[in-house]
């Protein structure tokens, strides 16, 4: 299956997973949130800001700033810089680029960071200015963001494979159970299947608990070589494999699979593991139906078996398939581009054994995925990574 000529990620590690706790609304700027994340990275890694020689930033609400403006803003002198506007796929893409940079010694310590603020009008402004196709051919239809676009995808996918709202709801309910153990989750109340089913419709078949809550927050981690981490005495997770794909399956009339399906063989072959070997899985959950699609496309079950898969598995922290252990975006909140990082950052904590109240026992092998950019009628960007903790 794997005919890849890709260079392995030997010697590349990730360290210092950082989450700046989310708030529903913030009067602070995106730059403020990103600054807090950088500060936390430095503190957690026990380094000086001057030791960071690579920076990769993602944000929807930085206004006219990009990574370059932030270097001066934060007094960073870097020799490698990137700004990644890939929405929910930003973390995977950032990690891929940073990994190759440190591997090639273009940089030694790369800070990957995503943060967004949420003023009362930020969400609307982000929607209005999302992309040209969106401006020309989606936004004028009152879609009000991704809800209606995803509703069309969800409706077609659920009808095609006979998936019920109960099936999809299991994912959201398990994540809420996980979130109740995460003090930083914005959602604090338990969620039952009855409550899930009785929720008010947003854009059929999408109902209230299928939607994430926009909020403010930031997430970050460091990428470096194994020997750098060792010299700093930093616990680190090894990068085993990655995939990234954009505009896959353009001939599918409607999206029933993401780009993962194109590259999933390579994902596991490069890592030298099987889906069954994974201790913890963090999918990109902007809607639970998209998570179900990922269970199929990432090889945990076949296409069309996603509903059966969630019926047969316990997706909670103590379950047989620990998934989105922090509560995911559905229960923690979606802090803009930081939503792309949420799963990966929590996954790193899991394999490093530092997840605290959401820790899965003996987790050492993790997978995180990303998905993003409903440019027109489908999500265009997808990616996934597999990583291992020191115990493996």
């Amino acid at each position, binding site marked *: 299956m794997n005919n890849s000529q890709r260079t392995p990620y030997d010697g590349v590690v990730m360290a210092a997973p950082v989450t700046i706790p989310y708030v529903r609304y913030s009067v602070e700027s995106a730059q403020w949130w990103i600054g807090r994340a950088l500060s936390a990275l430095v503190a957690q890694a026990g380094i000086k800001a001057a030791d960071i020689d690579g920076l990769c930033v993602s944000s929807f609400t930085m206004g006219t700033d990009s990574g370059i403006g932030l270097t001066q803003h934060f007094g960073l002198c870097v020799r490698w810089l990137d700004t990644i506007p890939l929405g929910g796929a930003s973390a995977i893409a950032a990690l891929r680029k940073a990994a190759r940079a440190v591997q090639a010694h273009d940089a030694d310590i790369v800070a990957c960071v995503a943060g967004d603020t949420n003023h009362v009008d930020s969400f609307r402004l982000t929607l209005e200015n999302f992309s040209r196709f969106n401006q020309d051919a989606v936004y004028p239809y009152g879609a009000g963001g991704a809800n209606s676009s995803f509703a069309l995808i969800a409706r077609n996918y659920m009808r095609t494979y006979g998936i019920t709202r109960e099936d999809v709801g299991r994912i959201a309910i398990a994540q809420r159970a996980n979130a109740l153990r995460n003090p930083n989750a914005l959602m604090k109340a338990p969620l039952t299947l009855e409550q899930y089913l009785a929720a008010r419709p947003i854009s059929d078949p999408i109902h209230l608990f299928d939607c994430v809550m926009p909020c403010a927050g930031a997430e970050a981690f460091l990428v470096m070589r194994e020997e750098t981490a060792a010299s700093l005495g930093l616990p680190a997770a090894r990068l085993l494999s990655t995939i990234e794909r954009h505009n896959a399956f353009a001939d599918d*009339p409607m999206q029933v699979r993401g780009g993962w399906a194109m590259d999933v063989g390579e994902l596991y072959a490069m890592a030298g593991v099987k889906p069954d070997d994974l201790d913890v899985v963090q999918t990109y959950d902007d809607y639970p139906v998209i998570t179900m699609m990922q269970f199929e496309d990432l090889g945990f079950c076949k296409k069309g078996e996603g509903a059966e898969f969630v019926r047969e598995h316990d997706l909670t922290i103590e379950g047989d398939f620990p998934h989105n252990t922090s509560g995911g975006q559905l229960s923690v909140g979606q802090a803009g581009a930081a939503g792309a990082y949420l799963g990966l950052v929590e996954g790193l904590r899991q394999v490093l054994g530092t997840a605290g109240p959401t820790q899965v026992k003996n987790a050492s092998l993790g997978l995180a995925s990303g998905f993003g950019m409903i440019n027109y*009628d489908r999500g265009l960007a997808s990616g996934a990574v597999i990583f291992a903790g020191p115990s493996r």
Partner: protein
Amino acid sequence: MIDPINPPGRKNPLLRTRLPASPPRPRSRTSHGFTRAAAEGRFVLQRCEACGVFAYPAREACPSCLSPDLVFVDAPRRGTLLAETTARVPSDVYFRERAPWRIGLVKMDCGPTIVTHLHADCVEGAAVRMSFQLDKSGQAVAFARPEGETPNMADDRQWREMTADPKFRRALVTNGRSVVGQEAVAALKAAGAKTVFVGVSEPWRPFAGEELLRGQQGIEVVTLDAADEKSAVDLAADIGGKVDILVNTTEYVRPGGLLDRRGTSIARDEVDQAYLGFINLAQAFGPAMRMRGADGINNSVAWVNVLSVYALANWPAFGAYSASQAACLSLSHCLRAELRPGGIKLMNLFTGPVDTEWFQTVPPPKVAPRAIAQAIVSGLRGGLEEIYVGDVAEEIRQRLAANPKALERELDR
């Protein structure tokens, strides 16, 4: 199947009139290829000149072969509704006020998929017929209707947002002394208008066709001389809040250009009647219409100008008249922009010489007044912005697009 809309009840004067909101307006420059088509009721898509592939949304290069030669061409309208959704709580104010709002994704037989507004009778998996419509922001949007006719089809709530159907609405036809005006009154009435006000100057003076207007159910003769500012203001004070559709049928046709006339007295009359008359009407009725763009079933929806097609290209035989029409056309674009915040459509109807006394010496083909009246109604029902009535108008439109210099030389005969 949808229920017919009910005639609106009497308005409660104590209730605040709902102010118009606009759906999102920004578009890329290329996307205005659809605006142009929607204005005329055509359905176009971009097609690659190199490989023949149809593309949507508007692009700058072919997604199949990267050729930059993408041309907006008339395209087959048939497609299949793949999936639908009903937005219950849109974040946009316009849609939030009109929720629930139904949209869908249509796979066109010719290739592309289109996010579209849906007629209530569209069913998943079934064929639909696509059009581009001008929405309340004046921009083009895709609209899917069932392939065949369904009962009360035009009463669909979302369709009615895109159109200016006379049904249950109140119209003002500005000049009842002309045959075109009288035909317009009859056509609007036949199309279900609740009331048609018809303006007549010095109404005590008899005129031909008077019996068609007087004493008819739903037709009210009102005093109006558009060229007289006070007359327009007085009438607006009386019925300004009840005009949902204004049809400006002012006509003042005199032959002649510049050198065969002496002085400016005829030109002054032409300007007084057509151009200043238009200004008087706009200033008297425009503000109230703009306020009432979202005022229920009989909200204010459209302003119609009947213009000579020689507004677009001067015909020296009627040279000064052509110029007065060109002035009105230019002013109409200003009025369109100013009415736009109310979601009011401005429709210009371009006609060749009409079969009336002032074009008596002009050889056929000439346009029958009834054809103009029918075009007004069909344009309102289709939500159009530009209509060309008759062979002469259509020919001038095409020749102007092909070569304006050739048209200029050939009109000089």
